[in-house]
C-alpha cells in the first residue's frame, strides 16, 4: 500500500466510530470477538509495554495462533505490516495491516509464576504473570479452554532480537507512547490479551502501563 493510500485508509478508519474503545490497565486481561473483516487496533499508550496476545478460531477453538507456523510461513521471526498470523492448521487468522512500532515478538512467550522461578528467583513465584491472567480469563469465561490452549503467543511492542550465531535476549523496546498495531481478521476470531505485569526484565521498561483496544466494523 502506498504511503498516500495508507494515510487515506487510516483517516477513513479514524473518522468512523469504533465498535469498541477501551483502556486496559497494566496487569489486566481482555477477551473479545473480532469478526471476519473487522479491524483491531492495539495502542501502546505510554510506550514499551508488552501486550501478550493469543487468537483462536471463534467457532473451533482447537484452532489457535501458532508462532512457528507464522514464522515458517513468512520466513522471518519478526511480525510487522503484512505479516499473516497463522494457525496451528496453517490458516490465516488475521493480517497485520498497519504497524507504527516496527516489529513485534513471537519467540519470547508469556511470563508465568513457574517460569519466573526459573528465570529470576524461587521467590519470584508470587509475582503477577501473563499466564495467570490468561488462565483466569479463560476460567471466568467458563468454556472448556484451559492451559492446553496456551501455545506460544505474540508479544506486541516487545523486542526480542536474535543474532546470527543464535543468541536471544530481551532488549529495550522499540515502541514509544501512542504507537499502535492494526490487524484485520481473516476469519472470526476470539482474542485473548494479557497486558503484561512483568517487573523483572526490560519488556515493559520495568513499569507496566495501560493500553487501548479499539475495533471497527468491516469497511
Amino acid at each position: 500500500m502506498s504511503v498516500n493510500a495508507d494515510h487515506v485508509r487510516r483517516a477513513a478508519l479514524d473518522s468512523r466510530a469504533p465498535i469498541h474503545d477501551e483502556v486496559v490497565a497494566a496487569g489486566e486481561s481482555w477477551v473479545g470477538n473480532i469478526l471476519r473483516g473487522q479491524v483491531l487496533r492495539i495502542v501502546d499508550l505510554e510506550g514499551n509495554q508488552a501486550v501478550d496476545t493469543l487468537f483462536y478460531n471463534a467457532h473451533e477453538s482447537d484452532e489457535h495462533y501458532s508462532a512457528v507456523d507464522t514464522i515458517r510461513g513468512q520466513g522471518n521471526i519478526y511480525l510487522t505490516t503484512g505479516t499473516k498470523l497463522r494457525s496451528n492448521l496453517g490458516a490465516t487468522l488475521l493480517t497485520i495491516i498497519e504497524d507504527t512500532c516496527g516489529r513485534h515478538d513471537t519467540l519470547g512467550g508469556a511470563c508465568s509464576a513457574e517460569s519466573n522461578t526459573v528465570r529470576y528467583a524461587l521467590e519470584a513465584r508470587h509475582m503477577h504473570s501473563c499466564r495467570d491472567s490468561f488462565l483466569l480469563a479463560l476460567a471466568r469465561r467458563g468454556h472448556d479452554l484451559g492451559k492446553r490452549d496456551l501455545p506460544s503467543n505474540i508479544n506486541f511492542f516487545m523486542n526480542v532480537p536474535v543474532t546470527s550465531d543464535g543468541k536471544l535476549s530481551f532488549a529495550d523496546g522499540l515502541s514509544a507512547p501512542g504507537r499502535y498495531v492494526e490487524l484485520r481478521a481473516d476469519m472470526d476470531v476470539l482474542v485473548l490479551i494479557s497486558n503484561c505485569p512483568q517487573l523483572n526484565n526490560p519488556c515493559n521498561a520495568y513499569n507496566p502501563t495501560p493500553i487501548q483496544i479499539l475495533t471497527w466494523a468491516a469497511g
Partner: protein
Amino acid sequence: MNSIPGDKAALWEETLHPGEHWSGVLRRGASLRLTALEARANVAAMLYNYECLSERYNMADTLKAQHTAYLTAGCVCYSDMGRILCSITADSCGWHDTICGLSDATVIANKYGATRFQEARNDFRKNGRDSMLNELGKYGLGKRDLNANINFFSRVTVHDSGALHFEAEHCAAGDFVELRFEMHTLLVLSTCPHPLDPAIEYQPRSVRLNAWVSGPAPLQDACRQRCDENARGFRNTEMMFLA
C-alpha cells in the same frame, strides 16, 4: 562416536523408517540417542509430561531461560511449568532448530506434489503435522495440543533482518544427539523433512533410536551447571520425585 554403556544398561533400540511417526514413554533416568543414518535427516519432536499431559515442552520458556534461539549439548528442554523434561547430554552436530515448526500437507503438496496411498502404497508423502496428530490421538491429545516442536538435526539461522536461512549441509550421516529424561516423558517423533528444507525431492531419512538406563542428572552436570536458571529448573523438577 561416544559409547552407550554396556549391554546391561541397554533398554531397547529401534529404527525409524523415512517419514515414519513414532511415540513412546521415556522414564526419568532413561537416555535416548537419536542417530541420523543418512545425511540431511530431520526429526520433529514433541514432549509431554506422561503423568500430566497438559504439561508439555515450551519453546519460549526453553529459549529465554537459556538465552538461546537453538538447542545443543548443555541445553535442557523446559515444560510450561518451570520443570525440565529432558537434558541434551551429547550432540555431534551443534544445532537443533525449535522455531520453524512442522511441515503440513500443503507444504508437502506445493513442494513435491501430493501422493496417495492408493498409488504410492506406504511410500506416500507424509507430513509433520498429520504425523503428530496420528500419534497424539493415541493419548487423547489432538489439534489443540499442537505447539512449537523441536527439529533435531536441522539448523536454521536468523539474519539481522529476522529472515531465516536453512543450512542444508548441516546434518551428516552418523550425527547423533542424546537426551536424558528428567521426568516421565511422552515423546512423539516424526522423521518427515523440515518445512524449510529446499530439497527438490521428497526424501525423508531413517533414524536410529537407542535407549539405555543412565540415571537422572547427577549433581555435577553440564546441563545443571550451564546457568543459574537451569539449577532452579532442576530443583523444580526434582521436587516432583522426592519421597
